[in-house]
């Protein structure tokens, strides 16, 4: 490892207004491969992100157990994702609310609820609900599946794009909760017997579990594995 000088000063002067600073990595010359923490015997504490030596068993700051790589995380993530996919199909087929309007009981699935919104002309609300309860869960499942496939089968996909997609998935995943909040508010407000009544239906539980499981699948996954495995096949980012 040559002792390369850090060119930090030239970056500093230009980024006084910018909010994002590109840090230069330890290997400043482009001809050298990127240096993984694993190769120089360092790892981050998974809990407090303190830098530790890989030879240590416990973090020197918070005493959590250290792991260089969590290889089981791919299987765990796959298992959670497959369960979530099955439940998401269930959540889309079964009714999510039971609406009684003047004695007439109607079952609303996620999709029929949205088409009802479109029919009544509430397009902005329909778009919000569509995004939260159909687009986001499916995008999350497809995105995570792509990500896991790329790691499991060493697919030659751009790692940087996968990583950007992963950050988006992590961030938008929470927004599916919108549907559950709306259901709980509606059910609590609308209870007037035969005249007008709203009740939750089985898909609500399935949908709640989909949110929980996909969030866990993204949290459990050790993303460093993507960069390790694809590094071996020597492709460019």
């Amino acid at each position: 490892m040559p002792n390369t000088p850090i060119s930090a000063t030239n970056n500093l002067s230009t980024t006084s207004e910018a909010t994002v600073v590109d840090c230069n990595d330890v290997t400043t010359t482009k001809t050298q491969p990127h240096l993984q923490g694993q190769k120089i015997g360092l790892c981050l504490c998974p809990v407090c992100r303190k830098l530790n030596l890989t030879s240590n068993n416990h973090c020197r700051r918070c005493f959590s157990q250290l792991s260089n790589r969590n290889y089981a995380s791919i299987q765990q993530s796959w298992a959670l994702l497959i369960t979530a996919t099955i439940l998401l199909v269930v959540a889309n087929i079964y009714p999510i609310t039971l609406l009684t309007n003047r004695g007439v009981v109607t079952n609303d699935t996620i999709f029929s609820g949205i088409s009802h919104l479109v029919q009544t002309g509430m397009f902005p609300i329909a778009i919000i609900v569509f995004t939260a309860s159909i687009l986001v869960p499916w995008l999350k499942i497809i995105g995570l599946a792509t990500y896991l496939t790329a790691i499991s089968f060493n697919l030659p996909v751009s790692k940087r794009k996968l990583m950007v997609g992963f950050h988006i998935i992590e961030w938008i995943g929470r927004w599916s909760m919108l549907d559950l909040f709306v259901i709980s508010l509606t059910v609590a407000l609308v209870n007037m017997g035969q005249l007008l009544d709203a009740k939750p239906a089985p898909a609500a539980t399935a949908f709640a579990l989909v949110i929980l499981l996909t969030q866990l699948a993204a949290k459990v996954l050790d993303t460093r594995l993507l960069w390790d495995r694809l590094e071996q096949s020597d492709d460019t980012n």
Partner: protein
Amino acid sequence: MHEFDDHDSIILCHSCDLAVRKRALPSSSRAICPRCHTVLYDSPYCSINGMLALCIAALIIFIPANLLPVLEIHFLGSVRTTTVIQAAVTVWAEGYWVVGLAVMVAAVIAPGLLILSILTQVMIVKLKLHSSFWQRAYSTLLKNHGSISQMTMLEIYVISFLVSAFQLSDFSDVYFGMGTFSFTMLFVIILFLQREYNLEHMWSYVDA
């Protein structure tokens, strides 16, 4: 390798394990990983007194936000109202306890725990409680901070007020209650609190 003996000048990207040399950042900027564009660290701006003020404000507004009615509908002369907690309990009582629990955790329990946790951390730092009990409590709170803040979903709940109001306006007249105002204020205060809070910086108090 000798140049890595000084651990604190090197940082590893937690997403792709790239070794990056750490350097000083200008204020209000963040360093990103040159390879995978994950945020590595922010310039530490973390005012203890500011957080204390925000915590107290959040605690005060937390009570009306959860106990006052957020939505009310007028239907054939009768008025129905609901609070955030009532909404979660009703779904639970209907037999959908998974949904009820999810709503309860995301909108009531996690935000409450978040405020109390940050308040305790701030007090421990501010009063310089160095005894081993408080230090253990401090690191336990820091370890759980990530999952608590991930479970807090106030911003989504605020949007859900609007969505429910529009959906129900098809059937009857819908009005926002004082709870909506308090809940939105709670969301804004917690937003600023989380902006002020810096986990890396809070951990640095353990080293000292």
